[in-house]
């Protein structure tokens, strides 16, 4: 099992700020420490927002990818 495996996927397509960060927080809350969350968003603002969110909450943003029209994030729950 690679470290960047996906344990939970959350689709925030069609949602605008601040829903992606709120849904992400909710999902992380339900997960085990060390698990990875994949979050998909169509909100261009999610790129800077997820970076800020992970710095503030100190969960690891492992991947952050612009897929052209949608954005994909991989976050490890650290605590």
């Amino acid at each position: 099992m690679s470290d960047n495996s996906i344990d939970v996927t959350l689709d925030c397509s069609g949602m605008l700020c601040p829903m992606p960060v709120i849904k992400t927080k909710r999902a992380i809350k339900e997960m085990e420490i060390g698990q990875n969350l994949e979050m998909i968003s169509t909100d261009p603002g999610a790129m800077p927002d997820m970076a800020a969110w992970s710095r503030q909450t100190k969960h690891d943003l492992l991947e952050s990818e612009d897929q052209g029209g949608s954005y994909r994030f991989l976050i490890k729950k650290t605590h």
Partner: protein
Amino acid sequence: MKDENRVRKLALISSQGTLDWAYPPFILASAAAAMDWEVKIFFTFYGLPLLKEKIDANVSPAGNPAMPMKMPFGSKGFQSINWPIPNVISNNIPGFESVATGLMKKTFKKKGVATVQELRDMCVEMDVTMIGCQMTMDVFGFDKKDFIEHAEIGGAATFLEFAADADVSLFV
């Protein structure tokens, strides 16, 4: 020097009850709570009705001359047209306020923006403290039972004590 591991705090004053002004405090509060910040919102003057069970906030073009008037339907080009509606119409035609409110609600829903009510529910779920201003309640004739159960009551000193220690304080 600030301790990087301490819980950050956001102190907000919500003083406006129209639909457009109702959004910023709830957006900031819910986003901050989602970042594990401790958040308190102090609702005063026209912000106080945002604590009522059912939020019936409207938006008016009166006093908001830069408000874009756009249609929530039709082609992308049609939707991007900013309809030039003179103040003499928007401020004087009966019912224009409910038209503007309806258009804003439809547009927001279509674009994927949560309603003010939904954002407030999420703030409650994430334990954002909401304080109703006792003085405004007395002046405008509100009772604590008019508000959601989550609401607390306080005055200027209650807010200032929290704000004194907050990382971010904003008056909306």
